[in-house]
């Protein structure tokens, strides 16, 4: 009964949100109540699954086993966090708040589609559920309705629906193979019962088609191109859901198939999983380095992590499967946290460009440290949960004797680690010059851009930044301009930082004052920068966001960040016994 409630609750909430009379007034509270209720129900079901091993709501149609419960738990936890986050985030980021109930309606539908995936046991309904996760989230991805968001939504829809059509063919072939193998009911269990008797020639193609088709949705490499677009252009709470749990929920279907095709095909499926997985990890790790948009950074990291999980499944063996399950948990917790942090940055600066954000720590301790923690955690730094997952996987791979694959994986992980931290480090630290840029200038001028005009005299954006510390502006700013001209931006910022240090440690205390000053005096500079062809307005000079601890972040966002940080930190050092039980049983499900 509870399982039905889990499926129907978001649907009910969606209906309520779509009714204009209710939705216009109470869409957000309704969504919050339904998400919270969903989490409570899910915990209840998960507890029963841990005790009983399996919850059957309607035999052969709706059942929840350990693996399903894990996904369900992740979906509803991230769902409730994303909902809280939306309360603070969406009103600030939406131009037209009168359509916000559409957002919440679609949000609930999206949650509905994702809880549908782990509870149904018939592959054909499973296909429909996965198709729904696309269809019901397309409009959310394009919610901001600018041309980039619509482009992202279009690519997302077309590529993933194409994949779904290929997977449909695969599922139909799978059904045929099951018939050839001697019938039964078309469920995971029914398939597993005749697994050894299915004709390999059909089964192989069926599995490959599903792997490729749903791989497009998971973001496995040849078909990953939509993922950075969609996961960066969607509203941030949706990004957290898309990246954190939707990809995983689809990967769940692929992983479920592995024990079914293993008896007939043997080691071949492990090989494919390894190839696709390592390809994804490798390509994503190198693509990470050259991104310019920090949300895309985390999106590529999702591709990488999906690859890691698939690689873990490809290693084979109970330990690797446990590692895969642990990594699923770790990725969902960490990646949603990362996106919440990225959303906070976006909220504070209005910028998507990594290069235009410097000195975040001074703007807002919360956003800065969240971004830093998130980046460290997702890159796999030791005390956090992803580290443990990756460590488990590498160790299991070694014990399975897959030395080449483990070696490649380790190299890619290191590359990704440096790629992520390279970008985030610059955003969070780089203090004084960063301050100067964040204060008055939307995009940092590269060498070519500041030629000419800035050469003539002291540029206003530097004199403004130096006002509070009362330096004689003439020579110093000319010197700075020269330094900036001569060097690429990171090096230049270091030079400037040295200058700032010499001016005394009072820089950051003087910061609020500098903001006051800049808000008064930055209007000419903003006009100036616009005439330079830099169209975005200097966002941080907005008095709506004072600098400091939270930096003007809405409290639901801060709350979400704090809540989301808990599993990232805690599960890295301590796994509670019921969770361990759940994970190891889920690992047994894909172990067959």
């Amino acid at each position, binding site marked *: 009964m509870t399982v039905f409630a889990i499926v129907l609750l978001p649907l009910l909430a969606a209906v309520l949100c779509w009714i204009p009379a209710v939705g216009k007034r109470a869409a957000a509270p309704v969504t919050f109540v339904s998400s919270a209720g969903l989490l409570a129900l899910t915990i209840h079901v998960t507890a029963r699954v841990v005790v009983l091993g399996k919850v059957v709501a309607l035999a052969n149609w709706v059942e929840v086993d350990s693996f399903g419960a894990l996904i369900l738990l992740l979906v509803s936890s991230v769902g409730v966090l994303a909902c809280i986050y939306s309360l603070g985030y969406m009103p600030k980021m939406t131009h037209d708040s009168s359509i916000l109930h559409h957002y919440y309606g679609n949000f609930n539908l999206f949650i509905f589609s994702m809880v549908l995936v782990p509870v149904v046991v018939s592959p*054909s309904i499973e296909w429909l559920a996965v198709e729904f996760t696309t269809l019901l989230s*397309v*409009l959310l991805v394009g919610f901001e309705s*600018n041309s*980039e968001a619509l*482009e992202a939504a*279009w690519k997302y829809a077309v590529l993933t629906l194409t994949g779904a*059509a290929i997977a449909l063919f695969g599922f*139909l072939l799978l059904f045929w193979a099951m018939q050839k193998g001697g019938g039964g009911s078309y469920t995971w269990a029914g398939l597993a019962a005749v697994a050894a008797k299915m004709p390999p020639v059909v089964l192989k193609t069926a599995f490959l088609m599903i792997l490729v088709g749903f791989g497009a949705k998971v973001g496995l490499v040849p078909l990953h191109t939509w993922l950075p677009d969609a996961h960066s252009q969607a509203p941030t709470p949706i990004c957290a859901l898309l990246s954190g749990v939707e990809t995983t929920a689809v990967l769940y279907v692929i992983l479920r198939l592995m024990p079914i095709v293993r008896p007939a095909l043997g080691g071949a499926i492990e090989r494919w999983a390894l190839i696709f997985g390592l390809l994804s990890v490798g390509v994503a790790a190198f693509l990470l380095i050259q991104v310019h948009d920090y949300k895309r950074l985390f999106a590529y990291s999702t591709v990488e992590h999906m690859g890691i999980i698939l690689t873990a499944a490809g290693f084979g063996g109970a330990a690797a499967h446990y590692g895969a399950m642990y990594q699923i948990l770790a990725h969902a917790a960490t990646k949603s946290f990362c996106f919440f942090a990225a959303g906070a940055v976006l909220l504070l600066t209005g910028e998507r*460009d990594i290069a235009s954000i410097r000195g975040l720590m001074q703007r807002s301790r919360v956003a800065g440290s969240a971004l830093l923690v998130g980046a460290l955690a997702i890159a796999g730094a030791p005390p956090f949960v992803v580290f443990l997952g990756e460590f488990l996987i590498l160790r299991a791979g070694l014990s399975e004797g897959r030395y080449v694959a483990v070696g490649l994986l380790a190299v890619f992980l290191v590359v990704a680690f440096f790629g992520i931290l390279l970008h985030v480090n610059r955003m969070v630290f780089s203090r004084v010059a960063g301050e100067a840029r964040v204060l008055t200038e939307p995009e940092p001028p590269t060498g070519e851009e500041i030629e000419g005009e800035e050469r003539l005299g002291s540029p206003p954006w530097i004199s403004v930044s130096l006002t509070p510390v009362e330096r004689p502006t003439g020579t110093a700013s000319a010197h700075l301009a020269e330094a900036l001209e001569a060097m690429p931006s990171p090096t230049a910022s270091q030079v400037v930082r040295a200058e700032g240090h010499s001016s005394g440690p009072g820089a950051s205390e003087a910061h609020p004052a500098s903001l006051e000053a800049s808000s008064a005096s930055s209007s000419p500079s903003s006009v100036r920068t616009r005439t330079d062809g830099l169209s975005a307005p200097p966002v941080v000079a907005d008095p709506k966001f004072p600098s400091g601890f939270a930096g003007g972040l809405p409290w639901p966002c801060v709350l979400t960040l704090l809540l989301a940080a808990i599993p990232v930190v805690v599960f890295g050092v301590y796994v509670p016994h019921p969770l361990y039980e759940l994970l190891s049983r889920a690992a047994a499900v894909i172990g067959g």
Partner: protein
Amino acid sequence: MAGESFLYQFNALTGGLFLLCTFGMVATRQVQGCMRFFILQSLFLAASAFLLGIHPVLWGLLAVAAINVVNKPILVPWLLRRTIPEEIHTRREISQVLNIPAALLLALAIAVGAYFLTLPWVNLAGTSAAGVNIPIGLAALLLGAFTLTVRREAVPQLLGLLAMENGAFFTSIAIAPELHLLVELIVAFDVLIAVFVIGVLTRAIHKQIGTTQVGALAALREESSR
């Protein structure tokens, strides 16, 4: 016996025309023409399901035929007309990535490839209908994906998607006639939702950038994001 051989022959003929319609979707230059070929293709799918289900009578297949006749030739165009009327009624030419003869030649190669790819399954299935429906279904699936990639417009891309689904079912009616009717119904439902969602999205794109040339949307790249 004679009756059965006629049924088989008609099914093969339906398959041939189904394949020809799929080629037509690659070859035509107009949105409307593409739509008509899609409708014809769906009707041939229904006809094939009918022919395979009539003797011996398989109610599942007859229901598939009925669902297809109602769903794709009637409901899908109706939904598209409701969401994006200016796109459906247009006789404007579609912009293509490849010129049409080249696209056709590639499409041909894909169809021949589909035939060789499915040879082992055909031998496994062993029925005469499977020999027609499996390769043609796979060919339609691949050609639908091909249409998607060579077309730059929203509606033809959507039709390519639906053609892929048609292809999948063209195969399934021959190899898995026992498939639960519920599956057919939910897929039909899913097609409608997909058409609706993509229609709404297309309308938003049309409103935002004034065209539905989705191929022209190329702002999101690593190089240009700065």
